[in-house]
């Protein structure tokens, strides 16, 4: 499924007279099967753009097409993973994953088989009968991932899914996500403000700017997976992106001086 975003703007009413321009005239396309990161500081509208693609919000201007058809509302072809997990706290891990399958009207046996498969895929078979309140944040996000994946969405939309996790869990889940992505062969749109995370995960990175939110530039990350964070090419791309935000922390002192003299 390729997604076309055409001249999309989104304004939010703050009160009767004032609007907040969350996104202004965004145009870009999302290719089938790619891993796209939306990267930017807070307030750049990256989450808004993702919610527009999901159909949770509707654009004020412009349109979003999927395979040529204008998107309307929510549907199961675009899965969504929220930052704050949004698990059904009254359901066990297993029942959370099964939720979407129950809505599909397939047999109980089939539901169980698919659920078992995805429990295994995200490594949660041991805690299948635990409630969300009893498991860690990393596990919760795995449940959310499995819950979205088991419906076989063409596109998976992820809104800063690892933002609330500790650094180590985050690195681990990034690897797991890549493994799942390569196995399931789906399109992923991943929102983050973490430059390294974006470079590690994405095929392409859409760099966004704020006030109003817009796409500044799209960067290709042509590095073979598995990627190594200390690799020369990796560092270069990260530095370039950081300096595009005015944060040249990776540059050496001499480079900085050269820049100043120019």
């Amino acid at each position, binding site marked *: 499924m390729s997604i076309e975003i055409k001249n999309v703007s989104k304004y939010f009413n703050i009160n009767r007279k004032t609007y907040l321009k969350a996104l202004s005239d965004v145009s870009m396309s999302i290719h089938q099967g790619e891993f796209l990161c939306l990267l930017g500081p807070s307030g750049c509208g990256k989450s808004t753009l993702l919610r527009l693609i*999901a159909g*949770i919000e509707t654009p004020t201007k412009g349109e979003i097409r999927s395979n040529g058809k204008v998107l309307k509302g*929510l*549907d*199961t072809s*675009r*899965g*969504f993973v*929220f930052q*704050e997990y*949004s*698990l*059904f*706290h*009254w*359901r066990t891990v297993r029942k959370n994953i099964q*939720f*979407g399958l129950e*809505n*599909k009207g397939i047999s109980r046996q089939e539901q169980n088989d698919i659920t078992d498969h995805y429990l295994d895929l995200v490594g949660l078979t041991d805690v299948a009968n635990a*409630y*969300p*309140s*009893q498991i860690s944040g990393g596990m919760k996000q795995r449940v959310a991932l499995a*819950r*979205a994946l088991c*419906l076989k969405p063409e596109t998976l939309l992820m809104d800063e899914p690892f933002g609330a996790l500790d650094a180590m869990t985050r690195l681990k889940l990034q690897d797991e996500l890549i493994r799942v992505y390569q196995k399931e062969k789906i399109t992923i749109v991943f929102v983050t403000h973490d430059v390294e995370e974006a470079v590690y995960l994405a095929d392409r990175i859409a760099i966004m700017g704020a006030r109003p939110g817009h796409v500044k530039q799209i960067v290709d990350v042509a590095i073979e997976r598995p990627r190594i964070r200390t690799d020369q090419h990796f560092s270069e791309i990260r530095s370039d992106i950081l300096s595009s935000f005015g944060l040249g922390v990776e540059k050496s002192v001499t480079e900085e001086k050269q820049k100043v003299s120019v």
Partner: protein
Amino acid sequence: MSLFKVTDVTLELKSLPNLLDRQYARYTLRIVTILGFLIAWDLLVKINLMWPLQFGNMPSPISVLQTWSTLLTAQDGGRYYNDILMSLTRVFIGISLGFLTAVPLGIWIGLSKRATDTAFTIFEVFRPVPLIAYLPVAMLLFPTIEGGIIFITYIGAFFPILISVRDATLRMSPNLINAAKILGCKNSSVFWKVYIPSMAPEIFTGLVVGVGASWMGVITAEIMSGKHGIGYFSWTSYNLLKYESSFIGMFTIGALGFGSTAFVRFIERSVIRWKKA
């Protein structure tokens, strides 16, 4: 649930019996307190105290307990049991009707501004009215006294449930609803599959408050206009100068209120097995 909580892992084993002793000491103290209360009551009646309070008019706890045991073991079936059953039935009907109407209305008001401006406006006019003040309306509105009594019981249950469900709906995370819809949950099933289970704890809280108010309502209505029921039993006993029975009625009402709250809490515990995150 263990009898005591051990929070300090370094706690030495030999201090455990100590804790246990302290727990027993506390239970003993409670029993002694109740016994002390009964003895004080008995003494005040025996010395026929008439000032500042007229304890001399009251039945002694011993005669109350004696009358109670004859009532409980009465061979003729006993009005006492019938009256209890009557009140229980009224409360049960009132609560059930309250539950069935207040939950959907609460969700609707929580979700829709239109409903807040229409239905909720009317409810807010009636909500501050004390249950007893509904009595004239209830008597006028219903062709039978029974209908009026159940109406008062219903009102008692309705408002607490309505308010807690409305508040729970307002607090509901929109992303939970979005998550459900993205997972293919239709608008019509969101109610059963997301709203109801998600706010079950708040519904039960409303229910517990509602049960209390409902008992208040049924006793009031029975005293004012009933022919049966434990409230009626208590009040007629007073009028017939059977003060022991009047006291028994009072304590029975307390026990029924306590019991029905405990029952709701029991159902809550067996329904809600998760801990809200």
